[in-house]
């Protein structure tokens, strides 16, 4: 069996979520690495779009931000930002966006995310950047969430909701006037969580090789259903080779 790092396993897990031909709203870091890996393996026709309006570029080097000119390399178009956001909003009726990526400092059992502040919002113990484009993606699109798996980050109630998930259950979004889209998958360095179809509460779907479901529960600040969990397939050597030699040869991310 091939040797791999946690970050590499996460990138492979991201790549496995992308189906060929899907349109994905991508941020920098692991989402970009994972989707680029998908494009180079199982989903060659996946289209990567960015909130800066750079559409379907083919970065040859790892970009540091969604505005990095490395993303605009051989892009289809560089839209003004409002055009991009119009496209995102209208994706509800056009059905043109398949998935968007989100991250955050805290997440609750329904996938509500905090990327704004820890503690009291008005006198924050730790202040983060704020939404960026995350809130709009959370409003209009199905999402894949990438998190660090720690008890203090996976909490019963987040200190501030930056990006709404399923709110408090199956009709949470409808009550607030939000479109019926939402979090589908949470990927951490320990495994993969999904949301129960009926309750919209997070459950453990997969644990990475070398990790136990109990370990994941121990690192989660709320009760997690681990009864349905299976062990993830380890990454194969060829995929790892593409990841480390072609996608991120400078090893900026993995």
């Amino acid at each position, binding site marked *: 069996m091939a040797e791999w790092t946690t970050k590499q396993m996460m990138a492979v897990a991201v790549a496995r979520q992308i189906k060929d031909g899907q349109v994905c709203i991508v941020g*920098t870091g692991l989402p970009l690495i994972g989707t680029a890996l998908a494009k180079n393996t199982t989903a060659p026709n996946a289209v990567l779009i960015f*909130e*800066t*309006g*750079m559409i379907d570029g083919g970065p*040859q*080097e790892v*970009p*540091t*931000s*969604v*505005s*990095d*000119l*490395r993303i*605009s*390399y051989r892009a289809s178009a*560089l839209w*003004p*930002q*409002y055009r991009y*956001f119009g496209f*995102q*909003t209208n994706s509800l009726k056009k059905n043109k966006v398949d998935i968007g990526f989100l991250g955050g400092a805290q997440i609750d059992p329904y996938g509500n995310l905090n990327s*704004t502040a820890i503690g009291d*919002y*008005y*006198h*924050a*113990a*730790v*202040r*983060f*950047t*704020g*939404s*960026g*484009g*995350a*809130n*709009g993606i*959370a*409003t*209009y699109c199905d999402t894949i969430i990438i998190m660090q798996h720690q008890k203090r980050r996976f909490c019963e109630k987040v200190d*501030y*909701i*930056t*990006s*709404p998930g399923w*709110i408090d259950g199956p009709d*949470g*979004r409808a009550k*607030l*006037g*939000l*479109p019926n889209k939402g979090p589908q998958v949470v990927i951490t360095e320990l495994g993969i969580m999904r949301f129960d179809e009926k309750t919209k509460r997070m459950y453990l779907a997969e644990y990475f090789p070398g990790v136990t479901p109990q370990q994941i529960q121990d690192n989660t600040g709320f009760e997690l259903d681990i009864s349905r969990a299976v062990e993830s397939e380890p990454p194969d050597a060829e995929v790892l080779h593409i990841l480390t030699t072609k996608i991120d040869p*400078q090893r*900026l991310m993995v």
Partner: protein
Amino acid sequence: MNVQNKVMTLEEAISKFVRDGDCIAFGGFVTNKKPYAAVREIIRQGKKDLYIETGAAAGDVDMLIGAGCVKVLFNSYVANSGFSQVCRRFRKYVQEGKILWEDYSLDVQTILYHAAALGLPFVAVKNMLGSDMVNKWGIPEEVWRNDPKLPSRKLIVDRNPFNPEEEFCFIPTPKIDVAIIHVQKAAPDGTARIEGPVFNDIELAMAATNCVITCEELVHPEELRHEPWLNQIPNVVPDAVVHVPYGAHPSQCANYYDYDALFFRMYDRISGDDELFKQFLDEWVYGPKDHFEYLDKLGASRLINLRVRPGYGYVPGLKRR
């Protein structure tokens, strides 16, 4: 209005158009095409109590906050992405309550700027519903009510008047006094051409009462009028045109230069510390008397090594750590 020649020095443009207490908007996006030369001049001139609009901000706004120029930040994001997770002066000033701030989603800011460019009073969006951006206001309600620079409220959640079954977030558009936009090419009459991504730049230029254009190259008007469909900002919009080559350093400028990654790493280190940040301002902002002395301080070889490689649009293999 002089439609023939709007060229002036950076000192003139900032002193003429940026007043204490103004609402200033900056073009660009995090580490791309930020009008840094203008930011440094605003700090040099000691402008105070500014209200800042910008969409995805970074070191530009962080420096203004740290230099004591900012009263209110309309925020969606402040980070030199890839080099610092959160800009450190911003984090410190918000945590310590030393500035007022208000949180929005980046897409909402973009939509607000577009609406402002059309002269519209507010937008109705689904965005921010169900989030604490609706429930928790960074700027206290009484400040919203009483500050003549602000609308009376951050937002109102209400029903769509044409379809009462739908809820929307109604958000007033900003009143921007001055937009500062960095472009690749401009002519003395104000005609401007942006190469590469345009971000919110055109919207901000149109929404603002006044517009200051800083440019990499000041060109003969015929150069731009030969193919007018490639120009984004027509001569009737800008009020000042300022020639500042490398005016976006340390950020990127399409077809001209890549970001200065090592400068951003240095900024990340020094901006976490009060004393080091003060030394940084003394050395890089107050020290050089103008933009050209700043370039001299950076040095020709450093700048030449950032020139983008034609065909790539960036510097392949650029030293980034």
